[in-house]
């Protein structure tokens, strides 16, 4: 195979796998930011919290990190629901959710990071999955399981979540709450309860993303900073409330980053990827799958 073609194909494939990680990181935010209109800037910090808990549990039990992250999801759901209760009581209920709400989640982010340092130290933590050292070869295409397995788990989780949102009554209520909360009241549904449930789900997704992250790379308390810009860009590019759009945007982001890094150097990757975001917003302001207001 022509070396440049092999480089291109590997860039695309590795970009798709990287996109799987971005999709995992962004899916929860797609619910909180896209559907509930809660600007949870601390979402990547919750992901890192999940990752570090998974690393600690992996060190103690040796259970696969992704299984551990699934086991953590109920606790993270409860944590998310509790945080939403506080957020709603002090900000949303009073209509102060815009700037004060943003400041609240900034505060939550710093509390998580400093709390992690105080509790488990500033060092990097890791969890070695049994398959992390294995790479499948398809001709000249490399498929490292360190990237492939987390991506597949992320896609499965997002697929299940999309089915829940589309098929179940509660899921449809979650999708509806962002559009017209008063209409929900007419159906005898408490929009606050629905938002509490949905925010819990978004934080539970952060736990899953944490499991994926710690398989891909070692993690410290500040590892989430790298993802803040990316996950918001992915959610906006995907069309805010669309999980399908979020996945597509995440894959596009990964591919653009890795193909650019392969041919033009890694310094250009973020500039080109965020340039594409601007281009998408210029041509299609509502994102890939967003509806025009």
């Amino acid at each position, binding site marked *: 195979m022509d070396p440049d073609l092999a480089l291109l194909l590997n*860039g695309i494939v590795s970009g798709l796998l990287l996109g799987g990680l971005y999709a995992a990181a962004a899916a929860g935010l797609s619910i909180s930011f896209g559907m509930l209109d809660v600007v949870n800037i601390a979402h990547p910090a919750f992901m890192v919290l999940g990752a570090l808990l998974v690393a600690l549990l992996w060190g103690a039990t040796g259970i696969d990190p992704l299984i551990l992250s699934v086991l953590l999801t109920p606790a993270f759901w409860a944590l998310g629901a509790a945080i939403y209760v506080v957020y709603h009581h002090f900000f949303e209920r009073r209509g102060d959710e815009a700037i004060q709400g943003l400041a609240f989640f900034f505060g939550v982010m710093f509390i998580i990071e400093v709390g992690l340092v105080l509790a488990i130290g500033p060092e*990097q933590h890791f969890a070695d999955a049994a398959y992390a050292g294995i790479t499948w070869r398809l001709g000249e295409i*490399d498929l490292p399981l360190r990237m492939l397995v987390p991506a597949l788990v992320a896609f499965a989780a997002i697929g299940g979540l999309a089915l829940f949102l589309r098929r179940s009554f509660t899921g449809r209520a979650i999708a509806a709450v962002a559009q017209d909360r008063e209409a929900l009241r007419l159906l005898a549904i408490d929009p606050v309860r629905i938002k509490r449930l949905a925010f819990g789900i978004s934080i539970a997704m952060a736990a899953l993303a944490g499991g994926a992250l710690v398989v891909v790379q070692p993690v410290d308390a500040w590892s989430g900073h790298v993802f803040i810009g990316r996950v918001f860009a992915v959610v906006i590019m995907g069309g805010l409330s669309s999980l399908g759009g979020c996945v597509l945007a995440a894959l596009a982001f990964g591919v653009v980053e890795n193909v650019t890094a392969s041919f033009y150097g890694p310094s250009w990757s973020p500039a080109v990827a965020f340039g594409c975001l601007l281009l998408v917003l210029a041509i299609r302001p509502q994102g890939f799958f967003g509806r025009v207001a």
Partner: protein
Amino acid sequence: MEGLSRRGLGRAALAAAITVPATVPATARAQTAPSGPPIRIGYSMSLSGGLAGNGRPALIAHRIWQEDVNAKGGLLGRPVELVHYDDQSTGAQVPGIYTKLIDVDKVDLVISGYATAIIAPAMPIVMQRNMTFVSLFGTGANNDFKYDRYFSINPAGSKVKETFAKGFIDLAMAMEPRPRSIALVNLDSDFHQRTAESARYLAREAGLRIVYDRAYPPSTVDFSPIIRAVQAARPDVVFVGSYPPDTAGLLRAASELRVNFQMFGGPMIGPHITAQKLQLGPILNNLVVWDVYAPEPTLQFPGTQALIEKYQPVAAREGTDALGHYVPPLAYAQMQVLEQAVKRVGRIDQAALAADMHASTFETVIGPLKFDALGEWTEERNLYTQYQGVQGNGIDQFRKAGTQVILYPQRYKSGDLRKPYTAGA
């Protein structure tokens, strides 16, 4: 034997009365507890944020030094007190911290926290107050200030471009067959730009063809496109400058892509930290890494082993870097330089301390040190080491000699280069 007369006894008593106060109390002073107001040493230290992984071990080394020096009677007979604040790894916090230390806390001496990003913001404050300043792991921090009371505990020396990568390039050019091409990969940061510049300069001097020369941003998540592009350029040797999260990503990608380079490494900061050593395990085999210390018999100085033995139980209790081979020896040496200068000068006099530091040689746990006009070491000591025979992920193999052998410089050499680097394959 001459008998003792009464006159003789009287002379002896007189002699004893004269000599005993001059000698015995000096010895007694050194063994008794220090007294009087403490000598206060102030600094910022990164105890949270991205630099805390090295800031916390540095602080443990400082505390060990404090206990050691106070147990020996303190400095000038006074106890030593450390006054430090967490700079949160943020340079913007540092000027305020040093202003408070000097103007409000009225510390007697100042030193730096860990790394150039923290040292540089402290310089203007320290210079305004004419304080003597001993820094830790700063690379070229005084190049622009040219402050004559600045002293650096960092082995890079003042001629970074000419010397930093010399060990790596010399080792490469000594291989058979001689390499003809090199790839340069570095993080887009101040330190790694300087190290890459050195590698670029010395590679050209050696006649090596540079086939790949790119920096990557700190936000990089996936390193496989970089390694794949380096592979496509087909270099014989690869010089990489990276920080811990990136180092793990680069080496993981190298392993997944089955690299095979005659020589691979450079200032890849990462395996210096115990957790990453354990995580990477056999992937480290044959990796050539710039370092400041390795537990090899050729690099033992008075106090080195004692420091490591005191450090490790404390680190285990406090949950920080387990082995302490990277920052703690240099952090302890930072305090030894201050201690020896104060003892020689005999008082807290910033000008006299700086003059003494420029004039003297210091005996430290990392060997003898002497400073040049810029406050850097007169003799650079960039170590190039190689991990050899790493098996599994156990910690004990990294405690003993032979796992991280020193290849360069010749005077500390403890093993021979093994090639190629195949990322554990």
